[in-house]
C-alpha cells in the first residue's frame, strides 16, 4: 500500500528529496528512505528518473460504478434567490457533461421554489430535480443531507458539484459520507480524464503553495465543491422542448432536524461585491495606514471599479473583510486588477492570478506580486496613485 522506494533501483541522486512537498524523504546511506511525513501524494514517483519509486495499487473495496451517469449541480438558493455559484456550476457542468457524453441536471431543494426552475432551465439544465417541503425552507444539515442522499442513491449521478459556500461546505461532506464516496473541496479546475472518463479535480493545498489533482477512481458519485467566482457562468438561453422537471417526494419531518434555527441575522451594512466587478484596485500593508484606502477608492471610482484588499490590510483592520482577495478571502477574476502595496503572498495570488490584466505597484522590486503582473511599477504608491488619477483624468 502506498509509495514504495525500491532500494535496489535507487541510485541516491536525491531528485525525489527536492520534489517532495512534505519533507518525507531522507537520504540514509545514499539511499532514499520514506519517513512518516509521507502523504502518498506521488510527487516523488514522477520525479524519479530511475523507476525506483512506485505507487502500489490500493486494496480498496470497489463499488459497481457503471450504473452511475449524468452530472448534477446542487442549485443552492437562499430566501428563494438562486446563488450566483449555481449558474457558474451549470456552466462548468455543461462542459463536463459534453466531455463525458451525458446529461446535465440541477437539484433544487426548498419550499415554494418552483419559480426558480425556469432560471435553471435557462442556464441549460437538461433536467431539474426538485424536492420541496416546509422543513426544507431553510437550509439545515439534517434535512438537506437526508433528501439529497436519497436522491443520489435513487438516481445515481456520476458527478455532483456544489458551490464551496458555507452551506455547500456543510452539506457536501455529510452527503459524501452518507453515500460512502469521496469529496474534493474548493476545486479551482475540473477536467475529464480522456481515457478513464473520470473527474480530475484540481485544488490548491498547503495554503495555495501547491496544487493537487485529486481523483476518485472507485467510488461514485465523484463529488466536488467549487469556489464561487472561479468558473464561467452559463449563458442564459431559451427553453428547449426536451427539458424535464422531475419531482422528488421527501419525507423530512420536524424530528429529523436535530437543531433549531432561532434567527438569521444579515450583516447590517451593504457589503461590497468584489467578485462581480470588472476593475479592482487592491491595497495591502504597503498603504501603511487606513487612509490609504481613500486614495485607492478615488482611483477605483475613476475606473468604475471597487476596492479590494490583502489579508494583511484586513487583519490590520484598515478595511472590512468583505474586500479581502485571496485564499481566505474571495477569488476574483476582473478584467483589470491593480495591486497597490501588496507583496503578493501565494495566498493572495491564488485569489487573483486569473485576472485579465494585472498591474502591480510596489516599492520593493523583489515583491513576488511582480511575478504575476503584466505591468509593474516600482515606486512609492503615494506618489504613483495620485499621478495615475491625474493622468487618467487628462487622457481619458
Amino acid at each position, binding site marked *: *500500500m*502506498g509509495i514504495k522506494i525500491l532500494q535496489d533501483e535507487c541510485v541516491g541522486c536525491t531528485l525525489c528529496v*527536492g520534489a517532495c*512537498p512534505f519533507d518525507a524523504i531522507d537520504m540514509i546511506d545514499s539511499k532514499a528512505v520514506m519517513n*512518516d*511525513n*509521507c*502523504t*502518498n*501524494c*506521488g*510527487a516523488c514517483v514522477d520525479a524519479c528518473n530511475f523507476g525506483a519509486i512506485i505507487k502500489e495499487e*490500493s*486494496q*480498496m473495496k470497489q463499488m459497481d460504478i457503471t450504473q452511475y451517469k449524468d452530472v448534477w449541480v446542487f442549485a443552492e438558493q437562499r430566501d428563494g434567490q438562486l446563488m450566483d455559484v449555481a449558474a457558474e456550476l451549470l456552466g462548468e457542468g455543461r462542459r463536463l457533461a459534453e466531455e463525458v457524453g451525458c446529461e446535465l441536471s440541477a437539484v433544487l431543494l426548498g419550499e415554494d421554489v418552483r419559480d426558480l426552475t425556469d432560471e435553471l432551465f435557462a442556464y441549460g439544465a437538461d433536467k431539474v430535480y426538485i424536492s420541496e417541503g416546509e422543513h426544507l425552507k431553510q437550509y439545515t*444539515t439534517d434535512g438537506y443531507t437526508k433528501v439529497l442522499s436519497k436522491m443520489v442513491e435513487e438516481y445515481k449521478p456520476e458527478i455532483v458539484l456544489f458551490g464551496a459556500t*458555507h452551506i455547500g*461546505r*456543510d452539506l*457536501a*461532506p*455529510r452527503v*459524501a*459520507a452518507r453515500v460512502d464516496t*469521496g469529496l474534493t*473541496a474548493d476545486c479551482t479546475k475540473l477536467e475529464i480524464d480522456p481515457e478513464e472518463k473520470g473527474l*480530475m479535480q484540481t485544488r*490548491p*493545498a*498547503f*495554503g495555495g*503553495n*501547491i496544487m*493537487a*489533482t485529486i*481523483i*476518485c477512481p*472507485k467510488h461514485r458519485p465523484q463529488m466536488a465543491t467549487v469556489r464561487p467566482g472561479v468558473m464561467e457562468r452559463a449563458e442564459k438561453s431559451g427553453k428547449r422542448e426536451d427539458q424535464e422537471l422531475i419531482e422528488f417526494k421527501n419525507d423530512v419531518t420536524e424530528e429529523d432536524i*436535530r*437543531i433549531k434555527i*432561532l*434567527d*438569521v*441575522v*444579515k450583516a447590517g451594512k451593504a*457589503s461590497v461585491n468584489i467578485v462581480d466587478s470588472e*476593475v479592482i484596485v487592491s491595497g495591502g500593508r504597503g498603504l501603511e495606514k487606513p487612509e490609504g484606502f481613500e486614495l485607492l477608492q478615488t482611483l477605483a471610482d475613476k475606473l468604475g471599479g471597487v476596492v479590494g484588499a490583502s489579508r494583511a490590510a484586513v487583519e490590520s483592520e484598515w478595511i472590512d473583510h468583505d474586500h479581502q482577495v485571496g485564499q481566505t478571502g474571495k477569488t476574483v477574476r476582473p478584467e483589470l486588477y491593480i495591486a497597490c502595496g501588496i507583496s503578493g503572498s*501565494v495566498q493572495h495570488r491564488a485569489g487573483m492570478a486569473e485576472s485579465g*490584466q494585472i498591474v502591480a505597484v510596489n516599492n520593493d*522590486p523583489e515583491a513576488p506580486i511582480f*511575478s*504575476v*503582473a503584466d*505591468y*509593474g*511599477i516600482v*515606486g512609492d504608491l503615494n506618489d504613483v496613485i495620485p*499621478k*495615475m488619477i491625474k*493622468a487618467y483624468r487628462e487622457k481619458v
Partner: protein
Amino acid sequence: MKIIVCIKQVPDTNEVKIDPVKGTLIREGVPSILNPDDKAALEEALRVKDQHPDTHITVMTMGPPQAEEVLIEGVAMGADEGILLSDRAFSGADTWATSNTLAKAIEKIGRYDIIFCGRQAIDGDTAQVGPQIGERLGIPQVSYVEKFYLEEGKIRVHRALEDGYEVIEGQSPILLTTIKELNEARYPSIPGIMRAYREDCIKVWTYEDLDIPSTDIGLDGSPTQVKRSFTPEQKGAGEMLEGTTDEKVGSLVQKLQEKNLI
C-alpha cells in the same frame, strides 16, 4: 460535561515560500503549529471548563509521532488528557478515512457531550473532517461556529454565513466546528506545561487499539487519491515600466487604454 476536541498539527503555511528558481517549496525553518481553527476549538472547550470545573476535556489528533507536540500544547493550555492516533496504517488517509479513524477512537472513549473541531486545517483547507466525523457518529453538527453559549444545558451558537449569521440551538451530543475568530486563545500555563511533561496524560493508540477494518482507514479507506501534485504555474513576469514616475504612469495609462481597459 465531557468534551472531545479534535486538533491537528500543521506546517505554518504563511511561512512557506517558493524557491523562485526551482519552483519548489522551501520547507526549511517552517515551524509546525497547532492549526488556528483548532486552537479556537480548544479554547472554547477550556472556557466551558472555566465555568464548569468538573468538565473533562480530551484532545485528540491523528498524525505522525511528532504530532504529540500539539497534544502536549493542548494539555499545557488546560486539557485533561491527550490521545495520539499514530500508525503507518493510518497514513495516506483522505478526509473520509481520517474521519472514520477519529470517529472510531471517539467511540472507544465512549460518552461525550460536545465534540469540537476546527473548521478546517490550513494545510488542506477542506473543512470536511468535522462534518464527516459527525456523520460517522450519527450526531448533528453546526459548522462555522463564531459564537458559543452554554446555558442550562442548552447549546446556542452563531453559525457564520457569508453575509451574516444564524442563531442556532442544539442539544448534546453535538459536533461543532469553530472558526478562529471565535475567541482569543490563552497561552499554556506554567503548571499546565509541567503537568503535560510530568504526568502520564498523553496516550498513543495504534491500529491495534481500534476495532476498525483496514479497508476503512489509511490509503485503502480513502475514496479520493492524489493523482499528481505540483507547484502552481508561475505566469511569465510581465513588463517592468521604467523612467520617472510620470513616465511610468504615462506609459501604463497608454497601455491600458490600448487594451480598452480604461
